[in-house]
């Protein structure tokens, strides 16, 4: 049975969340924003996976993995809607740069 440091995983997922957030805050291309969100989402999934792996009670650990399964499916679905919006936006405005979509403000 392998043993690994719990804290290391937390550090990793935190770092990935940080990278994802950084991307969301700085990127202007909608697709890049989607990618950044996916990175952050993967950090959350990773959390479930390793907390499940380290869970003291097997039944609870199983739950974590199940959640991870569901979330992987969810994240992919979410991307589909995002891409649909990208396409609609692109069709209408010819640009998917979010910095150019600031008509609504104030």
């Amino acid at each position, binding site marked *: 049975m392998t043993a690994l440091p719990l804290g290391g995983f*937390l550090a990793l*997922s935190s770092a990935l*969340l940080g990278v*994802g*957030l950084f991307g*969301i805050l700085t990127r202007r291309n*909608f697709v890049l*924003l*989607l990618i950044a*969100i996916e990175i*952050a*989402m993967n*950090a*959350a*999934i990773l*959390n*479930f996976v390793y*907390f499940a792996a380290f*869970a*003291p*009670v097997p039944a*609870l650990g199983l*739950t*974590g993995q199940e*959640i991870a399964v*569901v*979330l992987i499916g*969810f994240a992919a*679905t*979410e991307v589909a*809607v*995002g891409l*649909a*919006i990208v396409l*609609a*936006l692109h069709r*209408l*405005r010819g640009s998917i740069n*979010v910095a150019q*979509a*600031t*008509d*609504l*403000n*104030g």
Partner: protein
Amino acid sequence: MSFAGTVGPLVPEVIVLAAALLVFLLDVAGARRRELVGAISIAALAGALLVVLADLGFLPLAALRGLPPSVLNAVPAAGSAPLYTFGSLGLVFQGLFLLAALLVATASLSRASDERGAPIYYGLLLLATLGMLLVALASDLIFLLLAIEVTSLATYVLVGYTRRDARALEAAMKFYIVGALSSTLSFFGASLLFGAYGTTNLYALRAVAGSVGYPVLALLGYGILLAGLAFKTTLVPFHAWAVDVYDGAPHEVSAFLAGGTKKIGVFALFLVFLGPVLYVKAGGGSPFSGAPFDLGPTVQLTLAVLAVVTMTVGNVLALLQAEMKRMLAYSSISQAGYMLIGIAIGTSPALAGATLQVAAHVLMKSGAFLVVAAAAAIGVGPKIVDWQGLGTRRPWLAVAFALMLLSLAGVPLTVGFVSKFVLFSAAVQARGFFVWLAVAGLLNSALSVFYYARVLKVIFFEPAPGPLPARAGDVVGAAGPTPLGAGGIGYGRAVAIGVAAVLIVAIGLYPQPILGPIQSAAAHFVAGGA
């Protein structure tokens, strides 16, 4: 448990889902008339609402009950971790969600008849409602978050469903990005909670809230989860998207977002934070010290700060807002602050007050946005100054709108007053620093009077600049040739606005029929149910 066994009590949900599927099927079959799909949707929503009301124990409807009484407010056995349960507060919220959806669905009948996409519109509306209904049943964090996502995804599309409106698509884009970020944060927070407590079941979380093994991890989890849920509830500073989205979305969708889907965030906060809020452990100290730690007051204080900031910022931002929808959006943000007070206090009176505030807000804010839709249909522009003289040109519409604004401002004889009265009474009754919460809330509602009264001033005191532009049909859709009924407003909108206005006054006059069940539901909620 078999599937059949679990689906049994879910009559309203099944009705709504079936209607959504039916609408999609009809779409595929080519039957896309707005009246048809609208009627199906309205019938389904009304049916679901009746069932929910029956389940809540409104006597004349006892025959419609779908829920075995033994299930209602049943506390799950220790060790079992059901994903959803039937608490009466959840049913109350279901009723409110259905009411909001019903109002919007009815009003949407009046959208331009040549506008395409009625099936997808109503289908997504029904699916979003379904997500909301499921939120109200959730007893599991992941179930809750997924149900929220059902609604979220449906509304992302609803905001942009016209496809040809750049503003609406911009709104959808913003909505999506912030929404996706928030859902990510929610799941991340949930994962931390899962790590800290080893469970995602809300009952279990409540039960073990006291034995915090990893207080910092737990607090981080709650904090990030709060940030994620605050998106839906539009708490400051997680609110910024809401204004642009309400502004850019089709008016009926704005009504649905502000009056309906926003409330799932409120109920989610109720569900998630009741546990930590109720947990008090004398001792004090920092979560880092390893010593026993006051989880409850800490969470309460944080929620209270958020509530006050939300109310205040929302109101201040609304003060000089020039556009009607944005003003309503800011007002909606500040109203979220009031609702948050309920869970920050965490007593059953406070939750009852907050729930009534939610109910009030469903009527007021959906109603107000529907009035905006109606006004747009008769050619009133988006700016507040464009509303000059509405009081003389469309007195009934203006009076209904005035009722909604007065209710938002908390003027008596309206439901908005009763809800604030109960909520702040509960805050005062809880004593301690909650009294200051009440003071902050009331001062804020005083501040809000300024901009509501300003709108009333424009509508009633300032003369009309000239005749309305002769224009029938919707602003969003192309100019339709057929004039709408009910004075250009459309019968659907007129009915929805009328119902909202009547309910605002009726509940304002005699709230007991609503308030009594809400109070007992809140008491059940606090006592045992999640």
